[in-house]
């Protein structure tokens, strides 16, 4: 009987208990299976592609006393503006033996309360020939991204300027031919690499780079010497003035990185607004530089601080002259209905005064906290950009969440503030709220 009961127990209750246990603690049984993975899915393919789709909503509170608000809205004054925009970015490559073809395409569409705007651009499209790991020859449109600075790159001689509010976004490249050579050593000099680029400016080719009908040359010599990244860079050509520079980056401690850049332009020409109201050329030797640190605390708080001196920027007096032109334009428009001065101010704005961070001395601060309160994949942070000459600033708190596979959500606010005739006090917006959703594929 006992034996029979025992068998009954083993045959009946034990399996049931086991089933109940497995149902109650599914993780304990599944974990073993989850540790396997199928490598076939990740076999290398000749053709690969990916990218992301983005949807973004912006709400802008407009600063109705500011110069750039007046310039952009003098015909249709309003207090705020809502905008919905989308981006589709397609990246891909085709690899066959020693030949590769890479591309990055981006299409954008934007609808606000005033107008619809769309564009489609080839950011990169270039072919590469790689005879050995030591050498690469590139032909086509490519982004170079020279420099060690996070928010600005004075030595980015053949790059488009990045947006310090979104410095990690993809940029459009320029068409050229490049040769890349690498050599590694075992001593204090661990790596040496030379990148040379020939960048033509012809009709229909790199027209926005500079003066046409020229072939420009740029080169970067990279050294990893005693754990310090060092770049020596140079650019010669007639499309832009010749320029030379250097940058470095190293870790002073396991959680403390320091970087810097310096660029010298012996004869740089800049369009400035003359006291008479016209545009004139200012030609002078300029030296711009950047010094920055990146520091990580034991609590996973990462802080980036950069000081940037932009010798090519406008002085306070030059900026004042531009703001006064807009005030005069507004007075003329209200008094006579003529927007002649507004038209002139718009031309001056396009010549450089309307660029972001058009002043001379800036401080950049970005602090992010990884996964606070044990919330995985959440990164809140705050970014501040201060114009040190007029003490105007933007402060942008944000939160990024990437916990859903292949999705990224970002909520960001910005306060743009400054006094009368200061860079940020005369910006179009006084504040901004932005919600962005990205899906990667």
């Amino acid at each position, binding site marked *: 009987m006992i034996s029979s009961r025992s068998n009954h127990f083993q045959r009946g209750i034990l399996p049931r208990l086991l089933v109940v246990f497995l149902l109650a603690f599914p*993780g304990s049984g599944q974990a073993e299976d*989850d*540790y*396997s*993975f199928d*490598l076939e899915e*990740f076999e*290398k393919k000749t053709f*690969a592609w*990916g990218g*992301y789709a983005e949807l973004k909503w912006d709400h802008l509170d407009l600063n109705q006393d500011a110069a750039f608000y007046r310039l952009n809205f003098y015909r249709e004054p309003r207090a705020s503006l809502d905008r919905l925009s989308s981006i589709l970015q397609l*990246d891909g490559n085709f*690899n066959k033996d020693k030949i590769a073809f890479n591309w990055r395409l981006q299409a954008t569409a934007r609808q606000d309360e005033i107008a619809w705007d769309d564009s489609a651009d080839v950011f990169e499209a270039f072919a590469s020939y*790689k005879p*050995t*790991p*030591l050498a*690469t020859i590139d032909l086509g449109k490519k*982004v*170079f*991204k*020279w*420099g060690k600075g*996070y928010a600005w790159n004075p030595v980015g001689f053949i790059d488009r300027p990045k947006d310090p509010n979104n410095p*990690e*976004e*993809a*940029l459009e490249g320029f068409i050229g031919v490049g040769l*890349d050579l*690498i*050599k*590694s050593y075992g001593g204090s000099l*661990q*790596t040496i*690499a030379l*990148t040379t680029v020939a960048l033509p400016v012809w009709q229909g080719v790199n027209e926005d780079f500079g003066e046409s009908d020229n072939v420009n040359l740029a080169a970067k010599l*990279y050294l*990893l010497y005693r*754990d310090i*990244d060092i770049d020596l860079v140079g650019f010669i050509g007639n499309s832009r003035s010749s320029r030379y520079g250097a940058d470095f*980056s*190293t*870790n002073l*401690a*396991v959680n403390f*990185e320091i*970087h810097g850049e310096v660029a010298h332009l012996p004869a740089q020409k800049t369009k400035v607004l003359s006291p008479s109201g016209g545009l004139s050329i200012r030609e002078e030797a300029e030296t711009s530089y950047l010094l920055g640190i990146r520091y*990580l605390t034991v609590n*996973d708080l990462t802080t980036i601080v950069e000081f940037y001196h932009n010798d090519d920027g406008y002085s306070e007096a030059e900026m004042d002259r531009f703001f006064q032109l807009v005030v005069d334009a507004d007075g003329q428009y209200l008094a006579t209905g003529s927007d002649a001065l507004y038209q002139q101010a718009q031309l001056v704005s396009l010549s450089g005064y309307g660029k972001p961070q058009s002043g001379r001395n800036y401080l950049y601060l970005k602090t992010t906290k*990884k*996964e606070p309160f*044990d919330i*995985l*994949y959440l990164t809140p942070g705050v970014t501040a950009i201060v114009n040190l000459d007029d003490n105007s600033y933007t402060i942008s708190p944000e939160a990024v969440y*990437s*916990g859903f*596979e*292949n999705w*990224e959500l970002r909520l960001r606010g910005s306060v743009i503030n400054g006094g009368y005739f200061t860079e940020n006090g005369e910006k179009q917006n006084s504040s901004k709220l932005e919600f962005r959703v990205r899906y*990667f594929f």
Partner: protein
Amino acid sequence: MRLSKRFFNQNKILALLLLAVFCTTTPVMALDGNEILKQVDKNLQPESYEMYRKLINIEPDGSKKEFVLYSVKKGQEKMVALFLSPASEKGRSTLRLGENMWLYIPAVGKPIRITSLQSVVGGVFNNSDILRLDYGAEYDVAGVTEEGAKYVLDLKAKTTAIAYDRLKMSVEKKTMVPTTIECYAASGMLIKTLYYKKNKDFGGGLVRPSVLETDSPLYKGYKSVMVYAKINKKKLADEVFSLNYLPRVDELR
């Protein structure tokens, strides 16, 4: 007489106790700790190889996030890892040369320096866990004891640039691979524990754990797992381990 017998008995007990202690926790005089560590490194990874891994971050509610990496390593100080999945991370690569680490994000287009304490994947694994060099390249053996079927190595970081100041590594005598590694900060605080599991024959004479789990008192309830799928010996040029090569790492596959 009674006293001397009692004294004799006491000495006998003491001797037996000492013998017992000696047998259970013996400083390994005959074995060189550095030799054990060298053997561990040799058994964990070949001198020059390629490897496929899956990283799984598991949250307290059971939800998971997975990453698949292709890595190559050469010598004691050179390693590159390329993200193959998920799509949001695909194409990112990280390079380690000794104590220097960089992250390359294709859209950003240039490598930036990162530190061993950060984590490019979130979760409990940090960059030094993902870009793991030979233990012998980063640690000196401060002490070694024998505990039953295991050696226990007390490892001290060679420099302050190493992510963990001390490691307590338990090594299975039979296989000479680690079973657990406790990672401590300089303050003595336990940062995390690594558990090597499931020995597997990867071919070419390489038999080593195929699963590495970790948990941390700093991330209560969270767990991260690294699953090794393929480890092959591979000849690699030194130039593969350079910033200029980072956009090309996928060509090595």
